[in-house]
């Protein structure tokens, strides 16, 4: 059943063809490549943390003062993820920045925004069905149900977070208990530091003599670029290695309830390390009419939970006193997504809203394609910036 399938990517895009080349070869070689790429991911997160600390020094908070308005933070997370098309990349970068001194409170709305931004990918995938009316309606609703769910999460949890800071507190409590003040001083027991720090120190030392601000800036840039490339390549490799396993998981979820759907969505996302891959997979399944919107809905929610694994992995790269904050933001990401699913999906009235929203927008979009275009431009780019303007006006 778990027959391996090697995927080939389109040669029209340079990074795609490189990634496709990387995805060839025997399984053991692919796993070896993944291990190397995970190591690079840890190095790049550490590079961002170190670079940000060096560039900002004690002024990290001032540097991100523009994002201290939670709406601005939300927009930064949404637009950055929509442009990069990878929430894993953005959350890993955020983990690195938090390790470098970005306050967790400022990073939380960015993490929430990353959830919204990542949904652009499956919406673009659904456009492939545009020439076939009913199929497009089903595909577009299967894609946008994720958007509506994530917006509802923000509408519920962001005001609560602003008022009570419950996610920050819960994440802080958990990370302190998981890392512990004592274990942070047990340097001899930490195996990440001796493995990750040497390349970071090497890069830092090659820029000896340059101002700290410049050195830090270059380190951040290098870290961001490396994370982007690494996560793209890991995604390609895992897709080719895990497609058989993903099939098995989906087969086992057929005919079972929503909990099985959520669990399989989570596991498939952990396996392929990409929520947009998972949510995009359901678009053709729903588009063909074989799966109903209600059947794919829990699966897309599982993707929200599964994607948290990357930030947790990135947090392991951070050692020393800032490790607790890096883990805190990664745990906030996990708590936020788990709570979102628990609260929205367990309350029947709330559960129905994303379904109704997705069906409504799909019905309109199938009659008027300009609505589909307006929806994508508005949801991911125009409305976010209008929201910044409004929130700044209110704050003034």
């Amino acid at each position, binding site marked *: 059943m778990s027959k391996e399938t090697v995927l080939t990517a*389109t040669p029209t895009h340079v990074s795609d063809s490189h990634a496709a080349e990387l995805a060839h070869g025997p399984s053991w070689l692919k796993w070896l490549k993944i291990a190397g790429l995970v190591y690079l991911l840890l190095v790049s997160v550490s590079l961002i943390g170190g670079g940000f600390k060096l560039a900002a020094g004690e002024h990290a908070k001032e540097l991100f003062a523009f994002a201290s308005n939670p709406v601005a933070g939300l927009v930064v997370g949404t637009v950055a993820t929509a442009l990069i098309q990878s929430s894993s990349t953005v959350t890993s970068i955020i983990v690195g920045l938090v390790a470098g001194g970005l306050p967790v409170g400022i990073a939380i709305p960015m993490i929430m925004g990353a959830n919204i931004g990542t949904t652009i990918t499956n919406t673009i*995938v659904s456009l492939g069905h545009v020439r076939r009316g009913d199929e497009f309606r089903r595909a577009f609703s299967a894609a946008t149900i994720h958007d509506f769910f994530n917006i509802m999460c923000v509408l519920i949890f962001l005001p609560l977070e602003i008022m009570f800071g419950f996610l920050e507190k819960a994440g802080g409590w958990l990370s302190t208990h998981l890392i512990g003040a004592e274990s942070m001083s047990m340097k001899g027991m930490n195996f990440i530091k001796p493995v990750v720090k040497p390349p970071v120190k090497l890069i830092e030392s090659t820029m000896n003599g340059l101002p700290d601000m410049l050195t830090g800036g270059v380190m951040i840039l290098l870290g961001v670029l490396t994370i982007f490339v690494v996560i793209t390549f890991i995604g390609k490799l895992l897709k080719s290695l895990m497609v058989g396993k993903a099939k098995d998981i989906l087969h086992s979820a057929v005919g079972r309830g929503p909990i099985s759907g959520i669990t399989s969505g989570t596991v498939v996302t952990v396996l392929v390390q990409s929520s947009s891959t998972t949510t995009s997979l359901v678009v053709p399944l729903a588009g063909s009419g*074989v799966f109903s919107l209600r059947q794919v809905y829990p699966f897309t929610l599982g993707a929200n939970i599964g994607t948290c694994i990357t930030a947790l992995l990135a947090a392991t790269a951070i050692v020393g006193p800032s490790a607790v904050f890096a883990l805190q933001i990664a745990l906030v990401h996990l708590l936020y997504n788990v709570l979102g699913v628990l609260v929205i999906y367990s309350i029947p009235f709330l559960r129905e809203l994303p379904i109704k929203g997705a069906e409504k927008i799909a019905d309109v979009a199938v009659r008027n394609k300009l609505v589909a275009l307006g929806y994508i431009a508005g949801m991911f780019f125009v409305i976010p910036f209008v929201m910044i303007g409004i929130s700044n006006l209110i704050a003034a």
Partner: protein
Amino acid sequence: MNVKRQELERKIEEMEAALASMKQQLNRAVEEEQHESIEHLDEHLQEMEHKWENIREFWPIVVKEFRERFVAKK
């Protein structure tokens, strides 16, 4: 109990049993279709690689609709 009533109850029971059996058959058929569709997961993954082509395909349709709705009316 009169015969007519008994006859009606028996017929209803038979129809309900037939309906339940047909529902079960339908569920099985739907699930078979779903398993069959999952077997094409690798093709769906490949489609994802071509997502930018979707925009290229979508754009002329949007432009055409825009012209029909706004430009043609002028």
